[in-house]
């Protein structure tokens, strides 16, 4: 397909798809606090990117709610809007599932697993709790 035929909105979506996958691929290579699961969601937000990363050894107690923080564009992550990054340890995500935290509705609506592909046993277990297909 020629790039001229792609609508501006679609071009942005393609760019976002590329930069998010590259970001997750970089994070998947981290040895310290290894990435367990990455889910992109809230695709209805055209300008912003929403990503959940579950990280082994993420600080805080097992009952802590997942931490959501916002980032602006950076040279390595060029986007138009804001990047909403939600971070949790596997235990914190399980607790969030147990509490039916607000974020779960967004994850279940349109969440797509970016890592690991294919999901391993830990990821499958968490996805099952989230009600998302492995």
């Amino acid at each position, binding site marked *: 397909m020629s790039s001229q035929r792609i609508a501006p909105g679609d071009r942005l979506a393609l760019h976002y798809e590329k930069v998010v996958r590259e970001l997750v691929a970089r994070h998947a290579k981290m040895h310290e606090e290894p990435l367990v699961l990455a889910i992109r969601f809230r695709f209805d937000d055209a300008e912003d990117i929403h990503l959940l990363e579950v990280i082994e050894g993420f600080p805080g107690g097992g009952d802590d709610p997942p931490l*959501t*923080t916002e980032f602006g564009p950076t*040279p390595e992550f060029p986007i138009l809007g804001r990047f909403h990054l939600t971070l949790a340890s596997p235990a914190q995500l399980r607790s969030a599932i147990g509490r039916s935290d607000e974020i779960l509705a967004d994850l279940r609506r349109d969440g797509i697993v970016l890592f690991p592909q294919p999901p391993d046993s830990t990821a499958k277990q968490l996805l099952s709790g989230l009600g998302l297909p492995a």
Partner: protein
Amino acid sequence: MTDGHIHAAAAWLSQAERDARTATALLDQPTPMKTDDVGCHVASLCAQAVEKSIKGYVLLNRSAPSHRSHRADKYLTPLLRGDLLRYGDNRRKLAGLFDPSMRALVRRLFDLTPGVPWGVWMCRRPSTLGLTNMGHRRQPELISSQTRRGSRSGQSRRGASAPKSPSSSSPCDVSPSSEPGPTGALISRARSLYASPSRATGACKR
């Protein structure tokens, strides 16, 4: 960067410096404080200083720190990865400042300041805190007594006190004269961390 971000970050970083100065002053046990009063308050102020420093940097990075979480060490995970840093040349500085040993100390500091009386927390989490290396002895009687009273009356974190023998050391005792251990090292590192506040505010000059 907007002036609003700089002003907001400056407020956090200034308060962090005040907390660190106060913690340092408390180490000298000013009147009318007693030895046992010092440790938990110094640790608490060190935790406050670290939290506000990191959140101040988060703001300089034009990110939004959560007011709901005091575990500012959680921000270190995305910041140290580097790809979300607005100023890429800060990456090496941050990695040097928060090397694995410092991150472990910061994590331990936040674990030590959980928002409940220390005796209660240590009773719940003895293995996590590595009590045998704390440089003081546990007092099972004191801890269980605090736990019972705290759970009944919902005491504040600093409201717990219990009779003790003159020769005993309380879970709060991290006085300068106590045996150097991980907690003493932590405070020393925290003090050196804030010896040069400009390190944390370098991004302001850009």
